[in-house]
């Protein structure tokens, strides 16, 4: 069965939990998205920009030294870090801005955590000449100052959000408030596979290029499908993009890596499948970190892009049916992976992607050398180097 269903549900997850004022806009977005999917001209336009502007296909790179170092499976990296703007976020931002143009919208808003989605949105807004406002938690603005400047350089207004934990969740609240107020003129480019229907589906469809490309690339290089797919999961867009084209290939294990923060026992983490419960946040029913009263809990991760209290609804579904597995890596493991990949491969990963690498460092030793793993290297780490330098005590760089 094709999911989500007509109510935007993946099993019991997903749905449309939004104020009435947004319902007509969401219906319009969905209708335009369905029309665009069937429109060869839209697909041709997407393909053109994906190739010449984004730089797709991104390489599937055999990480030979990392593989040798770990002594286990052959590890391939899907190099989303080499896409324009340095992360997979551009795939979705491009798709949605082309939709917004079809709908005649003049103004774009977005939220951002790590800043990668904000940068991707600012980029396409500049390219297509649309007004753009990006909401960003004040804490994230500090730890991702470089990305704030990049957005501003491209003509986007970055609005700091001071509520709650001042991170991604609050930025989404503020973007929703803007949208509900300016719904006629504005399209909201949500950056992850979460929130209200049709976003989880739409974002997946624009991100599945990661999985589709990697599938044909691995077939070409190895003549068979991989044994495991590994990706970090914040909201879950790079992971669902990688996983989705393999869902029917039941021999391929799919592993999502959440942010373990300062450890699960500390309570300071963003691992929704470790102690999270079913609930509704920002438009969808899914697993959340919440307290006994149904209040959303503050999360922590060294990586701003994974620092979010809810997981995309399709991940909750894939976990429930046993198709995908979810684990976590903590801040320390992610930082070690950040360094190790830099040393071994000359590739500085984003701190988000470093969580997927951390899984390899932990799990690969002892696994058969005949296995093939494909890891989503969802973004590059330039944006994180100052923060990591600070953490490593290289204060003169921070």
């Amino acid at each position, binding site marked *: 069965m094709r999911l989500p269903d007509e109510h935007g549900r993946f099993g019991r997850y997903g749905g449309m939990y939004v104020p009435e004022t947004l319902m007509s806009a969401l219906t319009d977005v969905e209708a335009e998205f369905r029309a665009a999917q069937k429109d060869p001209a839209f697909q041709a336009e997407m393909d053109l920009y994906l190739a010449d502007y984004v730089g797709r296909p991104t390489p599937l790179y055999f990480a030979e030294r990392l593989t040798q170092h770990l002594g286990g499976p052959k590890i391939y990296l899907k190099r989303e870090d080499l896409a324009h703007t340095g992360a997979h976020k551009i795939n979705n931002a491009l798709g949605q801005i082309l939709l917004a143009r079809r709908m005649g919208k003049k103004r774009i808003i977005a939220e951002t955590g790590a800043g990668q989605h904000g940068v991707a949105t600012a980029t396409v807004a500049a390219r297509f000449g649309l007004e753009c406002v990006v909401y960003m938690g004040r804490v994230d603005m500090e730890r991702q100052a470089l990305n704030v400047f990049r957005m501003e350089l491209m003509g986007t207004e970055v609005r700091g959000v001071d509520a709650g934990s001042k991170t991604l969740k609050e930025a989404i609240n503020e973007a929703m408030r803007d949208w509900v*107020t300016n719904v006629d003129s504005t399209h909201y480019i949500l950056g992850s596979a979460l929130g209200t229907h049709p976003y989880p589906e739409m974002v997946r469809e624009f991100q599945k290029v990661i999985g589709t490309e990697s599938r044909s690339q691995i077939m070409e290089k190895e003549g068979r499908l991989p044994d495991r797919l590994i990706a970090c999961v914040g909201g879950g867009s790079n992971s669902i993009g990688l996983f989705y084209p393999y869902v029917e290939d039941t021999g391929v294990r799919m592993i999502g890596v959440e942010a373990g923060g300062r450890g699960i026992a500390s309570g300071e983490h963003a691992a929704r499948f470790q102690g999270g419960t079913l609930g509704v946040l920002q438009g969808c029913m899914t697993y959340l970190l*919440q307290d006994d009263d*149904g209040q959303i809990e503050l999360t922590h991760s060294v990586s701003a892009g994974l620092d979010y209290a809810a997981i995309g609804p399709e991940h909750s579904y894939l976990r429930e049916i046993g198709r995908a597995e979810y684990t976590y890596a903590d801040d320390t493991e992610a930082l070690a992976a950040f360094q190790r990949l830099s040393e071994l491969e000359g590739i500085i990963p984003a701190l988000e992607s470093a969580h997927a690498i951390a899984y390899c460092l932990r799990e690969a030793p002892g696994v058969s050398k005949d296995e093939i793993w494909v890891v989503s290297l969802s973004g590059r780490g330039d944006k994180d180097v100052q923060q990591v330098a600070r953490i490593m005590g290289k204060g003169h760089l921070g």
Partner: protein
Amino acid sequence: MNRIERCFQQLKQQGRKGFVAYIGAGDPTLDVTVDLVIALADAGADVVELGVPFSDPLADGLVNQLSAQRALEAGADVPGVLRAIQQIRARGCEVPICFFTYFNPIYHYGLERFAQDASSAGADGILTLDVPVEEGSEYVKPFRENGLSTIFLIAPTSSDERIAKIVERTSGFIYYVSRAGVTGERTELAVGVKEQIERVRRHSGLPIAVGFGVSTPEQARLTASMGDAVVVGSAIVRHIAEGDGSAEHVAAVAEFVRTLADAAHASEPTQ
């Protein structure tokens, strides 16, 4: 017939417009909320909407966000809000009380359990901001079974097709959101409200309360004239935020509410 339905029936019989006051429960404390609701009823509020504090109130403007934050910091939670309603009833106040909430806190409490406990505490209705009619099928049942009105929003952006679906699930009254946007005070009233309300009337004979952006007695009078009642929230919440919760402060808030209620009650239907 519950208190909300009786209230609107009486208003209709008297040929009067109603006044609905919103306050955030637990701001500054749940004890003060009990005093405030009673004082607001005495000051002429026909219905009180009681906000259930939530950590992520995405349909609210800054004034109500900060109110929810204060309430949570002061320890308000769902069981506490239910106890406050019990105390209001124990003190003999019979003003109709309607919850104004987000879905997650009541879903987490358990819908069935919440409906039962709300009913036995003495609540009369519920409006859940982030439950549109599409998600309403399982949601409505427990509340109706426990005698609570289920109130839904209708917005300027709601199509006729949607309005028809919404009114089917609505009881008590319709909450017409007079403008796209979040809760909060505005200096200008929304335009075209009268025409929009006539559009809603073609689908339903239920009373219509009009809200979002109303803050002064004059705005309350004008807005009430277009529907059956007017809702004022943020302007009252701002007055609550400016004091210390003392008896004098509660009395001052009630005095402000009296000016709004009097204006709404003095309102004549527009022709």
